[in-house]
């Protein structure tokens, strides 16, 4: 799961996968904007067949936050 998330983020951001880890901050380290986060999360929704509430997306600050949520809900 973690590696899948990291691979998607690496493709999206141009940050090498080996430089992304659980504690990477989506905005500060990966320079994503809030619309990027929404777009990436929507891709995960389609991939895992789940629906992530809007207010939950606002709680995603790090890679670990996304991983923990997807692990719980998938």
């Amino acid at each position, binding site marked *: 799961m973690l590696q899948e998330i990291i691979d998607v983020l690496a493709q*999206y951001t141009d940050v090498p996968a080996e430089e992304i880890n659980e504690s990477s901050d989506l905005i500060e380290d990966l320079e994503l904007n*809030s619309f*990027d986060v929404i777009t990436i999360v929507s891709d995960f929704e389609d991939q895992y067949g789940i629906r992530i509430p809007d207010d939950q997306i606002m709680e995603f600050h790090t890679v670990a936050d996304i991983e923990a949520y997807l692990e719980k809900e998938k």
Partner: protein
Amino acid sequence: MKNYPPYNPPAVEDLRQMIVSKAESNPDGIAFMYTGDDGTVQTVTYARFRADVDAVGTYFHSQGIVEGKHVALLGVNSYEWLATFFAIVNGGNVVLPLDARQPAENLIRLLWDGDCAVLAYSKEFEPAIPAFKASLNDSPAADARGFLALPLTSFSDWVREGEKLIAQGDRSFTDCEIDVHDMCALVFTSGTTGRPKGVMLSQDNIAANIVQASQSYDLVGTGLSPLPMHHMFGLIVGHLMVFNYNRPCYIVRNIRNVMKDIQIAKPTCIFVVPMIIETFAKQFRIMAKRTGAQMTPEMVKTALGGNLTDIICGGAPLPVGYVLMFRQFGINLLNGYGITECSPVLAVNRVMDYCDGSVGPALFDTEVMIDEDGEILARGRNVMLGYYKNPEATAEAMKGGWFHTGDLGKIDDHYIFITGRAKNLIITSSGENISPEELEDKFLADPAVAEAVVYEKDNNLAVQIFPEKEAGAPEEYFKALLKKINSGEPGYRQIRSLVMRAEPFVRNSTGKIVRALIEK
């Protein structure tokens, strides 16, 4: 191309006439489209829209919402939001479009400051309503019934009730006299100091800007804007201008569905802020990586619905590289400039009259000049009535009969270039205006903080704090304070980094901190 003539959009006398004329001339034309809760595409004709607005407005009148009542609108983008907007302003009342991402305490403060007696809200806000009522039942604006909160989920009931009243001969809404020079919208915007300021706009201001903007851009197909309707650029350009052009307006109900909505709507033009352009560019990169091929104009066009020829971008500075990139793909990325106080557009690049790096020529029937300090000044029918209950701020902003934008710029040939800010406002790539002083006040309220300055660093907010030495608080204390302040702010206002200072900030002769000397 200088002197390229204006387009000839339909005239707008006022916002009621705009609806009535379309309903009469093109009753079965599609005014709005959106994806419903069941996933099917819903369409609303001009005639249906007029009927819904008339019915809701009549129902509101029957509930005593008359004679200049201030009615707040709080919710995500929806057809119901838009129809309710018109039911408020065309009934002689004043609408307060609120930013749905604000924490409840900020919203309560705006409702109080804006003298709101009534709130129409979407279902996401149901849990917050008891707190709103408890705080606002005794406000000066509330009547004997207390603060009235009306759920937009009851929209179809309002229509049904209103239609019954109209059938019984109730003409209170449809014949209600509208003074186009009265305030019809009160829009709170981050000012350069302290509390947000309420920008007062009239129907004449809004009607003028709808026409001015469409004289510079000719919409030939469906328009789509993912921007929130409380944002004046999203509302007036992204929705009302499209409506006035007799073109279908696709309502994006949730920004997360924008790419899917674009595929359904197949717009010829979308109205966005730079943040969305950044994301499109990243998506093109990921598509190229996945397919192992360079993006071609055909691939980009397909990804954006197949019919897209133009993108109008405003709300924040747009790096010129994106303009060049989209041009390679055969799409005109037309950067513009505006400010809520000007209803909101002042300038936009045109398909036949553009200059890269500029925000284009001033709109027709507006005047823009640069004063001796380099500040951009504006004059025209689209300039606001003033700031609500703030004559000092109004006088300051309207010195010499010109609206002072607070932006620095230059005009070269007839193109306007934005070169900086005369004041301290921070503008994010999503077009949000953030007053650093407003956030700084929250730090300064803590006795352990002697000085605090909030600024923009790498597209994020940062704060530097000089501690009150006598308090002797450790750095962890300030980290906890930052976390606490962030927890009460929407995402775009959250501060991402904290720097503790060993020395106080440099101040000028009048005692103000010199922000330009702060090492970022």
